[in-house]
């Protein structure tokens, strides 16, 4: 009885934890993508839950074990770093190895051709130091409150440093792009002037020889 109560309580905690995050609706065959711009070596944890629309009640079924969710994560170079089909409820994790925009796409593994029913997707994405579970760390390493707080501060500062480094890399890219635009505009204006002069000269030469052949000049 005690074990059963514990199991029920644990299930309740899980349900409450997953019931409160943000949710949105997508069609069964629709694909929804989210972009996370993150520095390298950053952990991202996503919790999700999918519910199928129930036409009988007009609402959404509390749990729909039949549908699976395909999660695809692409790195900034468009390479797929995670592509798995998960069950209707679960979590996915990945760590970035290159800094930049990572695209997380979710779509159901439905085999229909056009849009079927609506799906309600609960989603919660946590990045960097928000993805760390401090309760777990406190328990495993037996840290006091102050030690745990200091650990949290250290993690936060580390994340801020990583973000600053990433900023520097991005600013460099921005600068390179601007300089490239500047160069291109310069070259284009020179080339355009040359092309105009050459075309003008060619026109005059060609017309002169044409009129001379026609004995009009």
């Amino acid at each position, binding site marked *: 009885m005690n074990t059963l109560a514990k199991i029920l*309580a*644990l299930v309740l*905690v899980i349900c*409450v*934890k997953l*019931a*409160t*995050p*943000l*949710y*949105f609706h997508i069609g069964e065959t629709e694909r929804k*993508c*989210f*972009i*996370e*711009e993150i520095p390298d070596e950053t952990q991202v944890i996503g919790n999700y839950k999918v519910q199928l629309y129930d036409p009988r009640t007009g609402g959404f079924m509390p749990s729909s074990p039949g549908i699976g969710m395909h999660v695809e994560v692409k790195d900034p170079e468009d390479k797929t770093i995670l592509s798995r089909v998960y069950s209707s409820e679960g979590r996915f994790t990945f760590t970035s190895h290159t800094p930049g925009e990572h695209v997380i796409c979710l779509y159901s593994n439905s085999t229909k051709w056009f849009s079927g029913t609506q799906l309600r997707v609960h*989603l*919660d*994405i946590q990045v960097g130091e*928000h993805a760390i579970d*401090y*309760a777990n760390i*406190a328990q495993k390493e037996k840290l*006091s*409150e*102050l030690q*745990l*707080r200091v650990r949290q*501060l250290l993690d*936060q*500062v580390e*994340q*801020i440093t990583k*973000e*600053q480094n990433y*900023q520097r890399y*991005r*600013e460099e*890219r*921005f600068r390179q*792009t*601007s300089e*490239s*635009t500047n160069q*291109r*505009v310069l070259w*284009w204006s020179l*080339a*355009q002037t040359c*092309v105009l002069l050459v*075309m*003008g000269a*060619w*026109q005059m030469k*060609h*017309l002169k020889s*044409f*009129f001379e052949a*026609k004995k*009009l000049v």
Partner: protein
Amino acid sequence: MRWGARVSGAAFGAALLLGLLAALTEAVELTFELPDNAKECFFQEITKNTTCTLEFQVVTGGHYDVDVILEAPNKEVLYRKVKTQFDSHTFTATMDGVYSACFSNEFSTFSHKLVYMDFSVGDEPALPGIGEHTTVITQMESSAQEIHKSLNSVADYQTHHRLREAQGRKRAEDLNSRVLTWSICETVAVVFCAIGQVLVLRNFFTERRPYTQFN
């Protein structure tokens, strides 16, 4: 045996309570693409008297504007902005229920937008262990808490900076590729016009051959 069971039971109860406390506060930030003529809605179940903040910023696309509507469970409009680039709105939930934040790009015909959104409900969950006892916290602990709050705001500023920088960078990249495309098109047009002019002029001065030879 019994004492061990009681301790594990108490520990489980504490963990359960912490789990529930953690579950009652959520902050989700998402960056998503809003296609043209589309409307995306995000729903969140909020309990009464919780302070929530909705923050959004348009990163790329068109004139960098989007329509935002925040609705209470009774369909009352709490916040509405038309063609806004970025804003932050804090409100306190007056009733239990599902609140919805909708972003609309229906006024745009061909520019799809990239929108960043941060919907945070409640305060940040306290670290496990802190806040359980009601004794006065030491100066060290309160300093650590202050540092934590400052670091939170640093991270927040970094996010805003990142979004602004992304906006500028994407515009610069777009400009770069457009300059290349336009200069190539311009060169082709100039060459085409020059050759065309010469051919037309030649045509004016060319005699048409009479077709009488087959009569």
